[in-house]
């Protein structure tokens, strides 16, 4: 069956620029899978896209309740796409709970596709609806009510399969329908089904997928189908990638590119666990994973591996990152290379572990006793996680220092099409162990980087001891000499400061000076870029920069900040970077803060931009 044999009789095809669809249902309904498959087809169809999965916090919340609703949003377009979109154009809701949890997000008069079979009085009650909401929704939305359960069973009636298994396919019926509605190719999904299932299960899924498609062609409920033309995309080979997968692959890649084995110590924690899972699959790259008894052991083991000459790395999220701080301080003091990856989640304390924030920046910078500086890099998109890790390892080894990488739950789970880099063009940071016993001192410093030598066990003549007590520069012997202590503290700080020379000058999106600069960092890149793009399209004089390097800052940051009347710093926290900028550059940067466990909406950013452009410049 070719998806290109289109245009059923009596139907209209309409071309649109962008669409955002949200698939929602009970966590047992397979929404994540449905969304992922739709994403793949969309990517193959040549659109730009951005996605956002939204899992329930519980493993298996009671069926049909709000707590159990799972969602997956995809935004695709023939133009550039930066975010999964504030408001979906289309909501697919498998049950009343899914409808209730998501309907308020749908854009006015958007399309709402529901499984009408699921609107029983019992399930309405489970969802907390006093009465059937559909009648009242029909005025405000384009309601498409499909007896999905029945149609799906129908499609399978002559197959030897029990009803429960049959019902579990219905997400693929819906998927087929959506493929028809948006003219998506279906082959990749079919291939995937064939690689995953066999026998009746395979047959059932293939059948309902095609039945859904066919239903689209025939039903009168959907008189129009839509074409989203291909986007202008940079040539190359692409794949979808989530931030967590990109982190994991970045870890594997660092080992390959630096020709040194990787040792990952980790303790499971949402939303960082998948990085451990993913890396654990690559033992054949010589990568070792160690599931430790806790976060402390995980980082300590990674430091041990670094001392022994491997690329030590540890992955975690907020509360686990807190626990790692004492050992991170030791890594600073012993000047060993190490990468610490914190996939931020909504807090404080346990908070909302499956929700989104970017509020561990201060923790990364200041979470240790005394003055204990570490470089910090924040990834700005799922695919960027890959490069960020390699960059972090390069710094760690060149400057003999731990480096912190910040991601967040949003980047971790959302996926974007990612242009696969040519391995040959990836950086190959050098790893050089010290060998020369004659001229060895544990704290002998490279004059350019201030790094001490990496002298690993097994090298004759370099036997030495490191540790957390204050050490004499040079020999590394324990020393309480007051001036030496101050010198060492300042050397470590200076070493981190010198990393600024590795950082390319930051580029301004928009005019180089003017009324308003928007400055974002890390995972809010998409939303801010989209908002500023829109604002400028609307004729607003707004420029934008985005920071991936939080410590040290890019060298030209101060002069950029001073070139604008106002600087707005949107952050998914209560104002962390903005304080750093104010303290460092004495510019009255303004915070825009949101701590709802959700990303910025483009409309929120636009509103704030409008507000600021309307205001007088404050003195």
């Amino acid at each position, binding site marked *: 069956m070719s998806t290109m044999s289109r245009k059923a009789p009596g139907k209209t095809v309409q071309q649109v620029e962008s669409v955002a669809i949200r698939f929602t249902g009970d966590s047992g309904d397979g929404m994540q899978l449905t969304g992922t498959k739709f994403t793949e087809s969309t990517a193959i169809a040549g659109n730009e896209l951005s996605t956002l999965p939204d899992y329930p916090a519980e493993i298996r919340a009671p069926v049909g309740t709000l707590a159990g609703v799972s969602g997956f949003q995809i935004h695709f377009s023939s133009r550039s796409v930066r975010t999964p979109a504030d408001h979906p154009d289309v909501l697919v809701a498998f049950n009343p709970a899914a409808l209730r949890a998501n309907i308020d997000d749908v854009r006015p008069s958007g399309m709402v596709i529901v499984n009408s079979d699921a609107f029983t009085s019992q399930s309405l009650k489970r969802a907390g609806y006093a009465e059937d909401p559909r009648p009242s929704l029909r005025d405000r939305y384009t309601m498409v009510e499909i007896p999905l359960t029945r149609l799906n069973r129908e499609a399978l009636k002559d197959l030897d399969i029990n009803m429960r298994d049959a019902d579990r396919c219905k997400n693929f019926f819906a998927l087929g329908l959506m493929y028809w509605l948006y003219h998506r190719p279906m082959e990749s999904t079919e291939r995937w089904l064939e690689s995953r299932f066999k026998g009746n299960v395979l047959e059932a899924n293939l059948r309902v997928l095609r039945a859904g498609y066919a239903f689209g062609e025939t039903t009168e409920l959907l008189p129009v189908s839509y074409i989203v033309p291909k986007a202008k995309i940079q040539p190359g080979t692409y794949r979808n990638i989530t931030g967590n997968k990109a982190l994991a692959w970045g870890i594997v890649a660092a080992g390959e590119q630096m020709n040194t084995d990787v040792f990952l110590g980790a303790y499971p924690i949402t939303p960082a666990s998948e990085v451990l899972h993913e890396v654990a699959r690559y033992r054949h790259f010589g990568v*070792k994973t160690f599931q430790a008894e806790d976060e402390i052991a995980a980082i300590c*083991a990674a430091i041990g591996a670094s001392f022994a000459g491997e690329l030590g790395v540890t992955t975690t999220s907020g509360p686990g990152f807190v626990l790692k701080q004492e050992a991170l301080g030791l890594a600073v003091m012993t000047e060993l290379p190490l990468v610490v990856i914190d996939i931020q989640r909504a807090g404080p304390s346990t908070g909302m572990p499956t929700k989104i924030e970017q509020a561990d920046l201060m923790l990364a910078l200041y979470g240790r006793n005394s003055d204990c500086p570490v470089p910090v890099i924040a990834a700005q998109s799922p695919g960027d996680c890959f490069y960020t890790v390699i960059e972090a390892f390069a710094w760690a080894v060149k400057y003999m220092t731990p480096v912190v990488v910040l991601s967040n739950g949003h980047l971790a789970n959302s996926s974007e099409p990612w242009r696969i880099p040519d391995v040959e063009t990836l950086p190959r940071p050098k790893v050089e162990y010290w060998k020369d016993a004659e001229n060895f001192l544990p704290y002998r410093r490279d004059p350019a980087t201030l790094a001490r030598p990496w002298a690993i066990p097994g090298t004759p003549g370099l036997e030495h001891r490191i540790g957390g007590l204050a050490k004499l520069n040079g020999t590394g012997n324990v020393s309480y000499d007051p001036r030496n202590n101050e010198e060492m503290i300042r050397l470590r700080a200076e070493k981190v400061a010198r990393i600024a020379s590795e950082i390319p000058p930051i580029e301004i999106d928009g005019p180089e000076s003017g009324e308003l600069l928007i400055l974002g960092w890390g995972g809010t890149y998409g939303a801010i870029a989209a908002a500023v793009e829109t604002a400028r399209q609307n004729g607003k004089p707004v420029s934008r920069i985005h920071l991936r390097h939080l410590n040290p800052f890019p060298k030209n940051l101060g002069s950029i900040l001073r070139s604008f009347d106002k600087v707005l710093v949107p952050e998914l926290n209560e104002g962390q970077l903005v304080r750093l900028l104010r303290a460092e550059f004495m510019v009255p940067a303004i915070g825009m803060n949101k701590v709802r466990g959700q990303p910025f909406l483009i409309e929120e950013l636009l509103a704030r931009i409008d507000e600021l452009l309307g205001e007088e410049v404050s003195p």
Partner: protein
Amino acid sequence: MTDHFSQLTAKDFTTDQDIRWCPGCGDYSILANVQRVMPDLGIPRENFVFVSGIGCSSRFPYYMNTYGMHTIHGRAPAFATGVKASRPDLSVWVVTGDGDGLSIGGNHMLHTIRRNIDIQILLFNNRVYGLTKGQYSPTSQIGMYTTSSPDGSIDYPIDPLAFALGAGATFVARAIDVDGAHLQQLLRRAHDHPGTAMIEILQNCPVYNDNEWAEVEDRKSRIDAALVLEDGEPLVYGSEDHRRGISLHDGIARVIELKRGQDPIEAGVAVHNERYQTPAYAFALASLRRPDFPLPIGVFRAVETATYDALLQGQVAGAIVKRGAGSLHDLLHSGDTWTVEEP
């Protein structure tokens, strides 16, 4: 590797650092004996790594002319795990104290032992926090008066070996700081053991807990106070005039008084066996308490089973055999991809 190590002596393992222990501290004797054993192990000096936490005992690495890490309080086994798991070619020794290893560090000890990673753990048990000036530790006897327990400690002590056996330790032993010959023998045994080898070393702290182990440190009283374990030999102790043995039934130990010339085995005395699969026998020995029973000294348990580091290396090697050495290009291109051509 060079084989210059064959000529090494204890002196080669000495650093130029001033030793910071109090005069009379048991740590001196332990250090001297460790330095004496090292040259005999057939390992180049550069392949030794000593890892410690924080405490008087944890200063140890500074005095060993090997690679060394003086880390943070309680975490030495975790650092050591990273060293050994990444570099099984190294000989990794953890030095820790009763506070470092069993108070703040109890959990890492537990998990390191259960994983059976091939390292040696030397636990210096002086039953007190030395470095922080004399608070009671998790091995201190109940009722001990210290700065932090002016009315007497109300914490029941842990027995380090019972704890280790509860974690499934494959090698546990007990030594005495001042009995150098015996200590050296156990150090060699620990080194030879594949897997985590834990030696509790009874150590005197003359400043904050003097004479805690006097009964077994003193050569005279040791005869009656200690039970020297020898594989295959009956559990017999005491002077020639007053020989006694230990029987064990249902895990319950009893002292059997032996007549002159009596065969202990016939009298029901248990025969020591380091290699029982179940840790229950060794645990029964570790549960013997003074003054009702003698304090066993020597190797309680030594059973062999695959080590964590070997299993990990095995998985790496196995994965390469099964899947071929990883190719980054292939990884990046695995699964669904699509190509956008030049327009």
